């Protein structure tokens, strides 16, 4: 201020100045601009570092969930144990519980011990059989019940290794920790190395992680996301089928047809408010209305879908209205000018132009719903579900899990193997979210490229 008006007449420059020399005011202004740019770059760097930190920690913890140690052995399905009277009657075979299968697995280990270079002192076949997951006998039983004609034959079967053995190859378990662990012994680890050498024990890609149902506390190696992915898929189906028509219809009415009066003002304000309501509130609402009042089943994707629909609708309405507003009014004038009715103008001209924005908004809304956990906890989606929901439409009413809830669920468990599973589930969730965002971008590009 002062230097600009050093002559006594306000508003008049004093003396002749050179363009080559920056005056104090310009210097200050340039410094402020440089500072602002530095702040901006710093903010972006912080954001990128945070993102890298987040993603790399998840990948570091979770990528091992996609690899799984398996022990492949020839196993003799002894008819004397599985089908005592030789009738082949499936109901009688089904009476043999998983305990009946454990000796067969021990026998298979005995056969392995006869091979050269395999066998650890003090480790019996029975103890060695503990290296197989507790899920192993159950898997074998399921296989036998599905193929009863295989009884009496020797089949090659791929068993899940137990969580500790699996952890040994992922760096979670060492000989020292095994000494203190009642679930695994150092001898078993030695044998595992020998089996690996012999090609019996292998670490391969873990398809089961994507297809299996959840498993109980002491068999993390068998836990998978199958039910959760299916449950999330069903919920997204419900959300999409409800939000898109309702949201778009509501937005078109509010934006193009509704008179501007105090009622529509209230509606508008409340839509914006609903978008800001904490999602858990929608969970309470869903519990009270859909489950307690309407009597829909707990843990069901239909209820989850309805709750997420309520949560997503405001987002989609706001996005749709924004993209309708972005269509230039001259297009509406043009359509009305040639004698189109209001509805023809909207559906023939405005809506197609707004479609990319509407689609993007919808997919972003769906992605938000896909990652939502809190409301689902309240409507019972947090339950332990082993059964896959049936195909649609009955499946919408069957109990199911959801991806984010499965993550929450697994982080609550004690076995460190579940940390890996939870991180793996987060990776799956992120892949789905990225895929949805990619679809949104592709759709937008494709529609906009037309003209």
């Amino acid at each position, binding site marked *: 201020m002062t230097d600009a008006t050093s002559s006594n007449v306000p508003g008049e420059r004093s003396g002749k100045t050179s363009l080559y020399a920056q005056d104090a005011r310009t210097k200050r202004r340039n410094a402020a601009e440089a500072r602002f740019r530095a702040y901006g770059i710093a903010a972006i760097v912080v954001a990128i570092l945070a993102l890298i930190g987040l993603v790399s920690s998840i990948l570091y913890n979770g990528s091992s969930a996609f690899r799984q140690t398996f022990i492949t052995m020839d196993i003799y399905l002894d008819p004397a144990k599985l089908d005592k009277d030789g009738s082949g009657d499936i109901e009688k075979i089904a009476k043999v519980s998983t305990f009946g299968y454990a000796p067969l697995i021990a026998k298979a280990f005995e056969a392995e011990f006869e091979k050269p270079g395999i066998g650890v002192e003090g480790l019996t076949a029975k103890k060695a059989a503990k290296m197989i997951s507790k899920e192993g006998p159950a898997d074998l039983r399921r296989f036998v019940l599905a193929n009863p004609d295989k009884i009496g034959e020797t089949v090659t079967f791929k068993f899940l290794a137990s969580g500790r053995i699996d952890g040994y190859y992922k760096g979670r378990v060492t000989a020292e920790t095994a000494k203190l662990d009642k679930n695994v012994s150092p001898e078993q680890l030695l044998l595992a190395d020998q089996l690996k050498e012999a090609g019996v024990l292998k670490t391969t890609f873990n398809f089961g992680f994507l297809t299996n149902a959840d498993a109980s506390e002491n068999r993390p190696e068998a836990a998978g996301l199958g039910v959760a992915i299916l449950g999330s898929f069903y919920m997204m189906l419900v959300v999409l089928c409800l939000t898109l028509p309702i949201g778009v219809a509501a937005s078109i009415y509010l934006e193009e047809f509704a008179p501007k009066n105090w009622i529509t003002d209230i509606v508008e304000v409340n839509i914006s408010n609903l978008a800001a309501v904490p999602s858990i509130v929608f969970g309470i609402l869903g519990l009270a209305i859909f489950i307690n009042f309407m009597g829909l089943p707990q843990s069901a994707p239909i209820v989850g879908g309805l709750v997420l629909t309520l949560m997503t609708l405001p987002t989609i309405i706001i996005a749709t209205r924004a993209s309708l507003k972005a269509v*230039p009014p001259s297009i509406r004038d*043009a359509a*009305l*000018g040639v004698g189109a009715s209001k509805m023809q103008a909207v559906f023939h*001209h405005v809506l197609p132009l707004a479609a990319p924005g509407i689609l993007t908004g919808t997919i972003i809304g769906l992605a938000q719903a896909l990652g939502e956990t809190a409301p689902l906890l309240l409507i019972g989606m947090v339950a332990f579900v082993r059964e896959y929901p049936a195909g649609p439409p009955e499946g919408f009413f069957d109990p199911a899990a959801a991806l984010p809830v499965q993550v929450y669920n697994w982080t609550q468990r004690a076995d460190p193997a579940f940390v890996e599973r939870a991180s793996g589930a987060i990776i799956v969730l992120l892949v789905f979210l990225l895929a949805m965002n990619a679809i949104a971008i592709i759709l937008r590009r494709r529609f906009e490229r037309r003209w």
Partner: protein
Amino acid sequence: MNDMSFVERNVDTKNIKIAAKDVQVYYGDTHAIKDVNVNIEDKTVTAFIGPSGCGKSTFLRCLNRMNDTIDVCRVKGDILLDGEDIYDKKVDPVQLRAKVGMVFQKPNPFPKSIYDNVAYGPRIHGLAKNKAELDEIVEKSLRRGAIWDEVKDRLDAPGTGLSGGQQQRLCIARAVATEPEVLLMDEPCSALDPIATAQVEELIDELRERYSVIIVTHSMQQAARVSQKTAFFHLGNLVEFGETGQIFTNPEDPRTESYITGRIG
């Protein structure tokens, strides 16, 4: 007051196409148009001139009820099209707008192909029974819009890809495709360069053979060039209406004189 100049302009006697009686337009509390009485003749180009905000565009938009889309806008008085009150309760504005076509200030082709731009009106009004008829209507309209030769080889190209002048002529072709009886033009040349303007003006002169054309313009030269009748609006009043030649050479009202000589507006 305009009988004399009929002779020198060599124009046939016309029917009254649109008659406005005591038209008042309000935007909320603003009285935008005051007591406008005007008779617009068939097969004539009528120019509305006046300074910005004088209500000429507002009045133009009343003639095909485009003001209906503005919530706060109210129209009083009678506007008769061929003796029928267009603000009658029985009148559907959609039917009215098919009869009274409109061309806007900014060229606003639909972001569709040139063909679809022109074919849209006939399609929604069911003017063509089949594709061949529609093709015929599109060609006829594009010819009337004096753009056929430029676009006949690329009817599938987007209308938005044309130059400004071509777009405006496309919009005129689109407007005439529904076979209107009156064509309203709201400053159709304000976004165009002089060459495109000349083309559009030439076109307007041709359109006079079939339609009653009403053009709002800021350019007094343009009004003088294209119109037979001129209406001068000032502050919501219709100050003077008469033969174009007379308005520009011998205006009756001092405000008209001030405007055309450049003292106001």
